């Protein structure tokens, strides 16, 4: 059922078994997992079913450090959340992403990739993906001509992505799930229900209720046995930090970890690969029929030997890429709709200009877009602003900070592939200028990221190591949980959504188990 919280009488009390805050991929995947169970699910969404400028205002914030997109327009505050402008790229993390890596500070996860495996497969359902297959040989049975470059398989492999059928360009989660959520008897969706306070018990080890508010200025209370923050890594941290009446530093923040270790994926044009001869293949391009994509990835043994981060290189025709404005320049409008228009306009302009470069060797040239994790960095963080939103909650500030390891890894990934294509005799590679000087650790202003917000409520075995425990429960608060990529210890190379939905489903199982035990 659906309730517009603007129409509730003042001081209403909403009660249920579990309260999920946020209707993005994490929150909705969890909510759907509770459909047709005996439990009442309170599902809270700040916005409504349509874009609302005033609600979106609450996502505003300022940035320092490495240049970033306007915080207001990197996310969407409406039913379906940021899936509304999600590209839909899904691929699981690699084993090495969860392993101890001495050369990557603060990188050790308290769980293994294997523990997440069954949830990855389950996550395919809400994300409307194809079969849980991410190996090239499988996809080669589905289509002819998926010929990989003849590169040394001990060094390079082809990492596979699937494209979700609930991506932003298909409308996101909203058209796919609105009706089923609204019609579910045990799901109580409240739109225009913005959480403005989280109240704990006296000893601050259990949450008692949330205070919600909207433009009517009426306040309401939400009570449940379990509360799940699923509003994205920046908002989750903001809410915990802003809940500082009972816990001076904010909830779950006794060890000053909430908001720290903010991570993004670097998505940067890094090099051009000029094929010496044409190489006929249907790989390395978006396969719309199979909803499939691949990138060149570095074997984990090589990452260990080189002491670099995990990253992959996707290919775009150089004639197009040279004419493309960096996304960070096109996406600078605070209004996400205008930024989206600018983004697509730039895309179309680049395509038109590329048509003038349809002859000669450039037709065999491809630009690498390197997609890479950033090293976990405590100085890369979300804090509270002195400015407040219309409902009185401090806005978020972001200091996005990169490290020399990030730069070195970006450079080495491209150099390694340059060596391999040279060995194979198929191409030569030209590094982009900003990667040439080995002593330069800086990143240019045109450095793109993927709008992938991760790591602000990182997972750790103890409260000194993380904000949440291995089950995504906030340390020390027995009924407060975090769903989403904020729990990541490292960012992995691929896009975060598949993994965050897998974690949300794992958390869902955990809460169900606890509900059963308590009943």
């Amino acid at each position, binding site marked *: 059922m659906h309730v517009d919280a603007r129409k509730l009488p003042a001081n209403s009390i909403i009660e249920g078994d579990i309260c999920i805050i946020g209707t993005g991929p994490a929150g909705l995947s969890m909510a759907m997992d509770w459909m047709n169970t005996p439990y009442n699910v309170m599902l809270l969404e700040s916005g409504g079913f349509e874009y609302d400028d005033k609600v979106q205002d609450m996502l505003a914030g300022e940035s320092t450090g490495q240049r970033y997109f306007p915080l207001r327009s990197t996310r969407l505050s409406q039913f379906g959340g940021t899936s509304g402008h999600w590209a839909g790229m899904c691929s699981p993390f690699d084993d090495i992403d969860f392993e101890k890596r001495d050369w990557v500070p603060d990188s050790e996860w308290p769980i293994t990739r294997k523990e997440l495996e069954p949830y990855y497969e389950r996550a395919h359902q809400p994300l409307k993906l194809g079969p849980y297959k991410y190996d090239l040989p499988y996809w080669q049975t589905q289509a002819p001509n998926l010929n990989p470059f003849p590169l040394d398989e001990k060094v390079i492999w082809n990492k596979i992505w699937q494209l979700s059928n609930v991506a932003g360009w298909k409308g996101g989660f909203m058209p796919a799930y609105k009706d089923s959520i609204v019609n579910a008897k045990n799901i109580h969706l409240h739109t225009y229900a913005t959480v403005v306070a989280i109240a704990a018990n006296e000893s601050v080890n259990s949450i008692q209720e949330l205070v919600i508010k909207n433009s009517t200025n009426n306040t309401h209370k939400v009570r449940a046995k379990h509360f799940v923050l699923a509003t994205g890594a920046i908002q989750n941290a903001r809410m915990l930090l802003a809940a500082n009446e009972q816990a001076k530093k904010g909830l779950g923040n006794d060890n000053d970890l909430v908001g720290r270790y903010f991570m993004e994926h670097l998505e940067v044009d890094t*090099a051009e690969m*000029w*094929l*010496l*001869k044409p190489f006929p293949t249907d790989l390395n391009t978006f396969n719309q029929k199979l909803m499939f994509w691949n990138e060149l990835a570095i074997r984990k043994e090589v990452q260990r030997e080189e002491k670099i981060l995990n990253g992959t290189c996707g290919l775009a025709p150089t004639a197009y890429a040279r004419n493309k404005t960096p996304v960070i320049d096109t996406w600078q409008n605070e209004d996400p709709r205008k930024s989206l228009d600018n983004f697509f306009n730039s895309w179309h302009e680049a395509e038109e200009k590329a048509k003038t470069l349809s002859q000669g*060797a450039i037709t*065999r*040239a491809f630009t690498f877009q390197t997609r890479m994790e950033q090293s976990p960095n405590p100085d890369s963080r979300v804090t509270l602003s002195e400015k407040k939103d219309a409902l009185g909650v401090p806005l978020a500030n972001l200091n996005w900070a990169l490290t020399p390891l990030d730069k070195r890894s970006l450079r080495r990934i491209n*150099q390694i592939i*340059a*060596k391999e294509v*040279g*060995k194979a*005799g198929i191409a*030569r*590679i*030209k*590094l*982009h*200028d900003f*990667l*040439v000087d080995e002593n330069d650790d800086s990143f240019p202003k045109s450095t793109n990221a993927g709008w992938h917000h991760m790591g602000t409520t990182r997972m750790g075995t103890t409260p000194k190591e993380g904000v949440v425990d291995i089950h995504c429960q906030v340390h020390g608060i027995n009924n407060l949980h975090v769903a989403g990529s904020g729990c990541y210890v490292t960012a992995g190379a691929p896009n975060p959504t598949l993994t965050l939905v897998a974690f949300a489903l794992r958390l869902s199982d955990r809460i169900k188990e606890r509900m059963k035990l308590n009943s």
Partner: protein
Amino acid sequence: MKRRNFVLLASAGVVAVSIPAVNYFFYGIPDYDKKLSIPQLLSLIWDEEKILSIGAKYSETFAEENSERDLARALFADPLNQSYDKLEEMTQADFDEGRMVIIDGWVLSKTEARQCALHHLQNQKA
């Protein structure tokens, strides 16, 4: 053959033999086919102007190799085995063994970068 023609032909032969010999004995430059200074694989993606420009940058970066003698010695060490195939074999070995240089952002084998530099020097002489 008329005597005059024979003398001319013989003289040309002597010059042809003696120039490489002079080059070798006086300047230490091994005899090589000038065409071999054009890197065949790179010419699939670059025009001559680009090859010359990369060659000039290589010469600037590796000043110790900025002479025809040094470059020709490095590229044509075996006078009996000079061919494009041999140079491609050397290029392949460079990539296999990590002997690469970065010139103007291009990640190149040492051999093909030297070819560019040699071509650049020849072009300057001409």
